[in-house]
């Protein structure tokens, strides 16, 4: 930020405003005085976008989940009913799939955070600046290989006689373990990056000061680094958790005979022509995520994401 740290270039470039003063521009003057007006101008466009595009769509989804499909005409019957939710509640298949999906998403999140922490720490605090740059590139590059191509590559790696078997490591075969491995792989860069960014913001001097004052490394890590890292970890965890929660493609390719919540939404919305039921099923991950976000918010980490 050298160019702004020294204010003179700013003045060089803009001598006129300084001479003419704000009085010459009524709009600017008005904005300068009225905080609420500035805020309104800043907020109106993005808020309108989010509400028009997204909030309305989510609300409509909720409403749709309270309708049903007429079995004879396949048209949607707009009479209010809780039938869809009753189906979800009464049939234990939905409970099983929900538990399975949440467990997989949790496992992926824990694995990713566990792997990402040491890597991000090495990148941010140990590696030389040059090596750091190369490492960031190395972590970012796989993001550009298509998601589908990568999942399919894992299918080949995990197949019988595939790379995993062939190299002697052994493969768990297709199933939930394969889904967890593949999803952890796919979302790992998205977890490394925010943790790395958070670590980068921890000044080296802070760590040194703690060390100079005699704090042993583990203690520095626990009481200084970790609290500063929480927002990064939370951001990464939300990412990997939510992306796994809604996935239906990976489980189709490497998941064996299993199905997850995403598959149920997908099948009911598409082939089964039952949008209300699909919408009702979609409420499950929404509730799960909202519970998670609320819990995180209690800890205060959300504001810092």
């Amino acid at each position, binding site marked *: 930020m050298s160019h*702004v740290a020294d204010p003179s270039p700013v003045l060089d*470039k803009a001598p006129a*405003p*300084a001479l003419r003063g*704000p009085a010459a*521009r009524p709009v600017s003057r008005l*904005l*300068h005085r009225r*905080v609420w007006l500035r*805020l309104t101008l*800043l*907020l109106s*466009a*993005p808020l309108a*976008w989010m509400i028009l*595009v997204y909030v309305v*769509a*989510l609300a*409509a989804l909720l409403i749709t989940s309270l309708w049903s499909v007429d079995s004879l005409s396949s048209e949607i019957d707009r009479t209010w009913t809780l039938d869809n939710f009753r189906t979800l509640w009464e049939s234990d298949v939905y409970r099983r799939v929900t538990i399975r999906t949440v467990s997989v998403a949790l496992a992926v999140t824990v694995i990713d955070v566990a792997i990402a922490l*040491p890597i991000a720490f*090495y990148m941010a605090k*140990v590696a030389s*600046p040059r090596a750091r*740059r190369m*490492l960031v590139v190395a972590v*970012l*590059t796989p*993001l*550009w*290989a*298509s*998601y*589908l*191509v*990568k999942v*399919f*590559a894992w299918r*080949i*790696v995990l*197949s019988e006689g*595939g*790379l995993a078997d062939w190299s002697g490591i052994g493969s768990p075969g297709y199933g939930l373990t394969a889904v967890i491995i593949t999803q952890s792989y796919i979302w*790992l860069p998205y977890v490394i990056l925010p943790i790395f*960014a958070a670590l980068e*913001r921890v000044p080296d001097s802070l760590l040194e000061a*703690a060390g100079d004052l005699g*704090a042993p*490394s583990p203690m520095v890590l626990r009481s*200084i680094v970790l609290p500063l890292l929480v927002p990064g970890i939370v*951001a990464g965890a939300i990412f990997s958790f*939510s992306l796994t929660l*809604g*996935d239906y493609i990976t489980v189709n390719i490497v998941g064996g005979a299993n199905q997850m919540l995403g598959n149920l939404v997908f099948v009911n*919305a598409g082939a089964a022509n039952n949008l209300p039921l699909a919408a009702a099923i*979609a409420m499950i*991950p929404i509730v799960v*995520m909202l519970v998670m976000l609320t819990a995180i*918010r209690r800890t205060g980490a*959300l504001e810092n*994401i």
Partner: protein
Amino acid sequence: MTLSTTAKRLLAAVTFGVLALIYLPLLVVVANSVNSNESMTWPPDHLTFEWWQRAWHSAGARDALLTSLEVGAVATGIALVLGTLLAMALQRYSFFGKNTVNLLVILPIALPGVVTGIALNNGFRGILGIDLTLWTIVIAHATFCIVTVFNNVQARLRRMGTSLEEASADLGAGVFTTFRLVTLPQLRSALLAGGMLAFALSFDEIIVTTFTAGDGATTLPIWILNNMFRPNQAPVVNVVAVVLIVFSIIPVWLAQRLSSDVDAVR
């Protein structure tokens, strides 16, 4: 804090070990792009460049790539504007409902893609009554890309503080001038980082895209999904993936350089 040499070596070993694992499946992709067995089973049969030739001549892949670049660029542009506005509002002002707005920005990325996809599909078709086109993809992508720009810009604004902007105002610069000459230059690398991530997200998004794509709107992931499972087309898809990886190194590297230059001064 000083780490022991052993600890440093251990960290290095973990880092490079995991990186090697990250690249292993990509090597499988490379191997399969020259594997003569069209169903791509392991180990590869013979070396062939047939798939590379076919990919070179594939008009479908080329068009899809262009479509994806266009969608990504427009969605990123929208996200840059909206994300910056939001970040400035939330970081510089406090107001009623701020937390709700914060949550609202995170929501499109925090809710699973299948939920966002089905909600937007229903919203476009049912509520707004518009047909799905390329533009509906752009709108959907922009919506979940806002958060990446927002995050980066907000973090930068927090670090910047307000002293420079106040100084600029004290020296008589108007609101817009201050933004253009003081705030924006400082945000440049944050915008670059946020924009890159937004573009990457849009470029590889498949789930929300399938729900919001109109007739003939074939982005690269959709093309890949349509071709991935045909025995004679799947290896061509691998070629496309290899090409993408190779070419992505350039923008990733450039972005890294640009942002590091700034960091170095910090």
